[in-house]
């Protein structure tokens, strides 16, 4: 396993070293002492596992296509933003805009996610074992958001085709968000996704798939229409 020690080095040097080790054929890299630095592991495009043994700052794993990230601590804003493929797992919590605009892959947050989780998602899956903050799923286009705990205000606002599941309470639904009864296959999907991505102990403390609420777009904002004036008034 390759190793990169962040102490005393700039982000540019750390990322260059990670890329150098990947070039030399490393398939697993331990990044020690990340010290909540911003922009660690940005734009990694290879199938490689990167373990960070502490907390990371903004945009960790941003713009990646393929790698696995395991973050032992918490993550700052824009975790894995615009990721195309791969998997990013955070043992702690994540700041604003986690998984924003991702097009594929999976983001797992084992504690809580702050505001604007999965905003403008275009694909992929985000799984939050804890709670999420304000405006999660805003303008989500595709992909799936799963929140095992409670969701904050303006949840799933102005969405296109992102599908959301919430295990706990929703403080307030966003404009044009509607709650649906999850189907049997939704429950199966939730059970298998949670079993696959969460450690057994953590999984045990979360609701069963059939107990989640499903939230989708009411499609009233998809096309300008005077009959939906009230909805538009809230959205614009």
């Amino acid at each position, binding site marked *: 396993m390759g190793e990169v020690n962040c102490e005393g080095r700039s*982000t*540019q040097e750390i*990322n260059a070293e990670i890329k150098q080790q990947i070039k030399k054929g490393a398939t697993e890299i331990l990044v020690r002492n990340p010290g909540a630095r*911003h*922009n660690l592991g*940005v*734009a990694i*495009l290879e199938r490689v596992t990167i373990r960070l043994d502490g907390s990371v*700052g*903004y*945009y960790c794993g*941003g*713009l*990646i*296509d393929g790698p696995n990230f395991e973050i032992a601590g918490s993550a700052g*804003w*824009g975790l894995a*933003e*615009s990721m*195309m493929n791969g998997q990013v797992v955070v043992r702690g919590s994540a700041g*604003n*805009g986690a998984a*924003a*605009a991702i*097009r594929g892959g999976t983001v797992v947050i084992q504690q809580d996610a702050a505001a*604007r989780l999965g*905003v*403008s998602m*275009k*694909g992929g899956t985000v799984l939050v074992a804890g709670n999420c903050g304000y405006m999660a799923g*805003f*303008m989500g*286009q*595709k992909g799936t958001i799963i929140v095992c705990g409670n969701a904050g205000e303006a949840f799933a606002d*102005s969405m*296109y*085709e992102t599908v959301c599941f919430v295990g706990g309470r929703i403080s307030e639904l966003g404009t044009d968000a509607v709650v649906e009864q999850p189907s049997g296959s939704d429950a199966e999907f939730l059970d298998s996704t949670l079993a696959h991505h969460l450690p057994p102990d953590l999984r045990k403390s979360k609701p069963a798939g059939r107990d989640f609420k499903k939230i989708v777009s009411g499609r009233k*904002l*998809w*096309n*300008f229409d*005077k009959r939906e*004036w009230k909805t538009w008034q809230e959205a614009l």
Partner: protein
Amino acid sequence: MSDELQRQGRTLQPSGIFQPAVIEDIQTKAETGLYRIRGFGTLRQRRWATFDDLTFLPCSLTRIPLEGYREKCSTATVLGKRHASKPIRLDIPVMITGMSWGALSYNAKVALARGASAVGSSNTTGDGGMLQAERENSKTLIYEVLPSRYGINVHDMRRADAIELTIGQGAKPGTGGLLLGSKVSDTIARQRDLPVGVDQRSPARHPDFLGPDDMIIKIEELREATDYQVPIFVKMGASRVFDDVKLAAKAGADVIVVDGMEGGTGASPAILQEHTGIPTLAAVCEARAALEDCGLYGEVQLIIAGGIRDGVDAAKAMALGADAVYIGTAALIALNCNKALYVDDYQKLGTEPGFCHHCHTGRCPVGVTTQDPELMQRLDIDQAAERIASFLRVMTLEVQMLARACGKSDVHDLEPEDMAALSLEASAICGIPLSGTRKIFGI
């Protein structure tokens, strides 16, 4: 006035407030229940100071002109020297602005790329990502990163020659993009990960940063993603330009793009086009002052956009402090926009050649702003590319002509002292003496 009234020698007195256009506007809103959306940019008669309120002061005895055909006048333009290891090097200072594939047809996008490349200029992607053919046909391609992140793709980003982080546009600062359902075809929906036929709105804010402090980190992320090679542009609509430009420069932008209120658009609410932002002339002056104020004038390059029509506007923008200009609408017009072809189709849209601003409908009679395969066919890519190249060449010749007449061997040496103001407003805004007075008004 009807013929009958004219025969009777009677004139009609319209209300000064509720003029016929206002009456029509109110009644349309009453019928549709929607605010008005259209393309093209402001339709107002400009009563504010514009580039037309300035005139050049060519050499006579105080300064010596260059010989038009013999003495060199450089147009080479370098952008992004501040941090990038590979700044953009263009042969001319007139560039094609970001217009999305979706707002524009495939043929228009490819023609712009080819035409710009033929004369050593650049092309820019748009809200919807990069088109493969656009990359293949662009010598220099700027990749926009917009709030919507439609079509965002790290591989495309890494194939670009510069990144443009877009905060806003001149036609509608503070709001997101718009693409009406008639243009969200199968192909465009796939490219943007959207359902076919939706009236697509884009968010106004980026999903992963809010203010200038976060933007510093965002810019670093973009540099990491592109190995610190390509310049990072920051584009903004012109509102509080003096402060916004300083913030962008301090956040680490290599190049700042300021798009004035005359800026064009594929589709926006009409009131935003008419009543938001400040004019391009005012914007360039504030932007320059901002860069001077923070000691970064010359180090951070400035691109000005918004209603640039010809080499004269470009030369005036450059004399006031721009390193280069972006053109959008003028390039579309060179492609054939508003040309008297397929006149029946203009009439079906309720307009005439020369008056069209119907890009939002997706029924562009000349194949420029449509996704309809039949309409798109009307724009022959090779011929259109040739027209773009010719237009860019002429614009460049016009800038050079003015620069030579002012005694400059490089178009970038044009300066405010090369001009006089023709109105008090322009004098005050630009800090240039009003012609005939030797006085700068407003100071």
